[in-house]
C-alpha cells in the first residue's frame, strides 16, 4: 500500500532540526515508542507498542537510512515484526522544506503489511493511524512551540486530515515511519 501525507510545522526548519536531535523528545512524541537505539550510522532499532482493535503488539522495527541529505530528506527502509500480530516492511521517502516561517514535512511510503493485523484490524487501522499521526505532529509542534515561546497555532486544514493514503493504512506502520523519520533527523543532526 501507499501512504502519503504532509504536515506543516509552524517552526523554522533549523529549530525543528535541532529539536529533533533530542532522542528523549522523540520517545515522548512517537506514540507508544519504548526505545530508540542506534546500532550503527545507518542502522537503528526501535520498539513501539501499538493496539489496533483487538490486536495488541510490541512492534520491533529495524531501520536503515539511505540517500541522506540533512537539509532535504532521505529514504528510510524499515521492517517491523509484531510476532503473532504480524509484520510490516516498507520504505519511505521523506522531504523537508521551508514553508514561509515554518517547515513542511512530506512523506510517501510504500508499505507491505501482513498477518493478524491485516486480517482482523483493517477496518480499525485507518482511524487509529489518523489519531496517532496527529498525536505525533501535535506533540512535536507543542514541544517546539513551548521551546520557542511561540503560541501553538491551529493545524493547517490540509494537514488536519489523515495522511491521504490510497489504501487502508496501518497505525503501527505510520508509527514506524514516524519513528524512522525521527531517528533519521536525530541521526542526521
Amino acid at each position, binding site marked *: 500500500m501507499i501512504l502519503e501525507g504532509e504536515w506543516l510545522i509552524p517552526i523554522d526548519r533549523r529549530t525543528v532540526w535541532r529539536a529533533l536531535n533530542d532522542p528523549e523528545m522523540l520517545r515522548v512524541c512517537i506514540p507508544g515508542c519504548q526505545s530508540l537505539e542506534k546500532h550503527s550510522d545507518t542502522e537503528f532499532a526501535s520498539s513501539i507498542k501499538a493496539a489496533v482493535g483487538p490486536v495488541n503488539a510490541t512492534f520491533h522495527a529495524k531501520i536503515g537510512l539511505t540517500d541522506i541529505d540533512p537539509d532535504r530528506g532521505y529514504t528510510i527502509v524499515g521492517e517491523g515484526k509484531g510476532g*503473532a500480530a*504480524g509484520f510490516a516492511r516498507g520504505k519511505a521517502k521523506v522531504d523537508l522544506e521551508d514553508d514561509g516561517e515554518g517547515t513542511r514535512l512530506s512523506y510517501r511510503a510504500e508499505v507491505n503489511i*501482513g*498477518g493478524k493485523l*491485516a*486480517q*482482523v484490524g*483493517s*477496518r480499525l487501522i485507518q482511524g487509529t493511524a489518523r489519531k496517532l499521526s496527529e498525536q505525533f505532529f501535535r506533540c512535536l509542534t507543542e514541544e517546539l512551540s513551548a521551546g520557542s515561546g511561540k503560541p501553538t497555532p491551529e493545524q493547517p486544514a490540509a494537514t488536519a486530515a489523515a495522511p491521504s493514503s490510497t489504501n487502508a493504512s496501518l497505525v503501527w506502520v505510520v508509527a514506524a515511519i514516524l519513528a524512522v523519520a525521527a531517528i533519521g533527523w536525530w541521526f542526521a543532526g
Partner: protein
Amino acid sequence: MNDREDFTLIGRTVLRREDSYLLRGLGQFLDDLPEPNGLIHIAFVPSPYARASILSIDASAALALPGVIAVLTGKDFEGDVKTFAPEIVIDGYREVRRPVVAVDRVNFVGESVAVVLAESPYVAQDALELVEVEYDPLPAVAGIEQSLAADAPVIHEKLGDNLLFKTRFETDGFEQHFAAADLVLEEEFRTGRVTGVMIEPRGCMACPDPVADNFTLWTTTQIPHIVRTAIADHLGMAESALRVAAPAVGGGFGTKAHVYPDELIVVALARRYRRAVKWVQDRREDLLTNIHAREHVLGIQVAVNRDGIIGAVRLDVRTNAGAYPNHPYSCTLEATAAVRMMPGPYKIRNYKYDVCSVATNTAPTGAYRGTGQPSAFLAIEGMMDRIGRKLGIDPAEVRRRNVVRPEEFPYVNVVGVRYDTGSYLPSLERGLEMIGYDAFRKAQPKDRMVDGKYRGIGICNYTEVSGTGAPGWRVRGFAKMPGFDSSRLVIEPDGRITVYVSQADAGQGHYTTFAQIAADRLGARWEDVNVIEGDTSKTPYGTGTFASRGSVVGGGTIIRCSEKVAVKVRRIASYMLDIDPERLVLTKGRVCDKDDPVKGLSLRDVAETAYSMNNLGLPQGEEHGLEATDYYDPPMVTMANGTHVAQVAVDPEDGRVEIERYAVVHDCGRVINPMIVAGQVHGATAQGIGEALMEEIVYDAEGQHLNANLLEYLLPTAMDVPDIDLAHIETPSIDTVAGIKGAAEGGVTGALPALANAVADALSGLGVNITRVPLRPSFILEQIRKARGQVPG
C-alpha cells in the same frame, strides 16, 4: 398403535425431531463432548506470510510456559504422516502434495508452521504468541491473472508454472457452427471468493482406546467414511482400528465435506502420546484456513441467431485453486463443475470449453454449496439477458426459445449428462407468473427509474446436479470417490426400527426425513424409527452428505433396504398366518392380507418370531434376525431444476440493492418433507443473496488476507433476506429410487444470477454493464456515477 394414523409419510410435513433438542441448546457438538482425562489441547502457529522460506523456529519461550507439553514443526511429522493429496485421475491434472504442517516453505497466510501441545486451550493460545519464527519472505501471487503471468513466481517449483489443471472439450464441427450464427455476443464474468461460514467452525478430538491399539476421531465432518480412509492411508493405520464419528454438526455447506490436515494431526498425536488430543477452531482460523470457493473468471462467447436461438457457446473458465489441492476433490471440482453445468436447461448442441485451475498463495479452494454452478449460471443466464437486449426480444422469451421442453425428456446434454425428467418451461412460466412479470415489464420505463430508484427484474432458470453416483465422479477424475451410500435397517425384537445410514447430518433434518422414508416403506410410525448415522463404527461404508446427495442416495438406499426387510417380514408372516406372501401388505404397523386387513399380525409379532422370543419356529431355511443391508449407487447424476425471479430497487444515492420481491419455483422430484425442502430453499437462497450482494474474502496482491473476521466478511442477516414466495413442482425422476432428486444447492445457484441480472436490468437504462459479484453498494455507486459522468467519489 393408533389406527387412524396416516402411514403415507413420504411427501408429508412432519416437524423435525432434532429441533426438540437443538432449539433447547441440548445438541452435543464437538466442543460439548465430555473430555477424556489427560486431554492434550493443540493450537496451530499460522504463517503471517503468503510465501516465505522458514529460516528458524524458536520455541524456547513457548516451552518455558507452564502447561506447554511440546511445540512440533513440520519436520516432526515427516515420519508419521504422509504428505497429503487425493487421488485424481484426469488428463491435464498435475499432482501437488501438501505437508500437514509446513516444512521449510509456507505458501499461504494461515498455513500452519508449528503445533503447540498444551494442558489447556488457554495455555496453547498463549504459547502460540511466544513461538518465534524467522521467515525469509518471497514474492507471492494471489490472483488468477497474476498467477498466469509469464514472470509469475512459481509456487510449486517442480511444475515449472502455476497451472495445476487444464482440460478442454469441443463438439464436432464446432467452429463451423459457431461461424454460421448471425451474431456473436461476448462477455467476461467474475465471481468473488467466498466460504461456507458454518455457525459452528470446525474441530476434532482423537481418543486412543485405553486397552487396544484403536482410536476414535470425533470430527465436525460431512464425510466420516472418506475421512477414515484418508487418515488410515496417510498415517499407515488399519481402517478397522479407526472409528470416525461426527457429533451434532452445526452446518457444513461443503466446507466440512473435506479432509483437513488437522484431522490427520490429532490422530497422529494421539497415537504418539497415547493421550486424547483436541483442537477447536476459532472464527479467524475458519475464514483463513477452511476451504474457500468460487473466484472464477468466465469468458463466454455466444453465437446466436436473430430469433434468439443459441447456435454455439464457447466458454473459457479459469479458477483459483489456492496454494494446494484440497482433499478429496483436489482443484478440479469447481473447474469441471462450472464447464459441465453451464449448458443447464438450454439446448446448446455446439459447445467448446477450456478450463484451468491455477495455484496461488491463498487458502485452498474446494466445495461450497452450489459448486461451480452459481458461476456457470451467472454466465449463461447473463447472456440470455444480453441476447434479449441486443435483439430486442424479452429476456424471458429468449429463455423460452432455448429451453429443453417437457416433451423432449429424457434429454442428453452436450457433455453427455442425461436429464431424465424436468420442468424447465413450466417452472419458468410459473416463476414469471408469481412475480407478475408481464405487468412489471409493461409498466417499466426505459430508464428503469421509478420513484427515485432504478428498478429491475432478473431471472435465473437453473438445473441442479444432485445425487451423483460413481460414474459421475469417475468422469470428472475422482478415482476414490465411492459414489454409493448404504444403510442397514433392523426391525428390533419389539417391532421398532433402527436404520443405520452412511451419511452424516449437519442440520439437514436426516433424523426426521430418513425416519419418514423407512416408516413409509414399512408401514410403521415414523416416531418408531430411530436413525443413526455419522459414525463409521455403526454404519456400513458410504460417501457422505454433500453435493445434494442426502435424499437421493441416503433416501434411496433406505427405501431399497426397507423393501429387502419387508420381503422377510412377509415371508415370516406368511408362515405364521398361512397366507401367500404376495397377498400381504405392510401398513399401519401391521402385516396383513391386502383384501382382509383383519387377518394380520403386528410387526412386533413377526419380530418376536424372527428373534425367537415366542414358541413359534421359523420356516425351514430362514435365519434369525430381521434386518438387511443395502448399497445404492445412483445414476451418474439426477437433475433437479427451478427458477428464481428477483425484483430489485437500486438506490442511486447510496448504491444499495433492495430486494423488493422474490419468487422461487423449485422442482426436486419426489418431495419427502415439504417443510424441510422449503428450509433448504430458503437457506440456500440466503447464501446466494450473500454471494451476490455482500460476501467476499479479500486478498491483497501480496496474498495478505484482509478480512478474516465477520465484521468485514459480510453475511446476509434477516434484514437482508426478503420474504420468498415459494412454489414446488414435483416431476419425479425416472432414474432414481422413488423419483427423488436433490434439493440443497439450487437456492444458491438460482439466487446469484437472478440478482445479478436484476441489478443489471435496473441499471441497463444507464448503460451500466454488470459482470461481477458481489454487488456491494460502493461498487454500484461507482458504476452509477461513472455512467452519469460524475466523478467517482
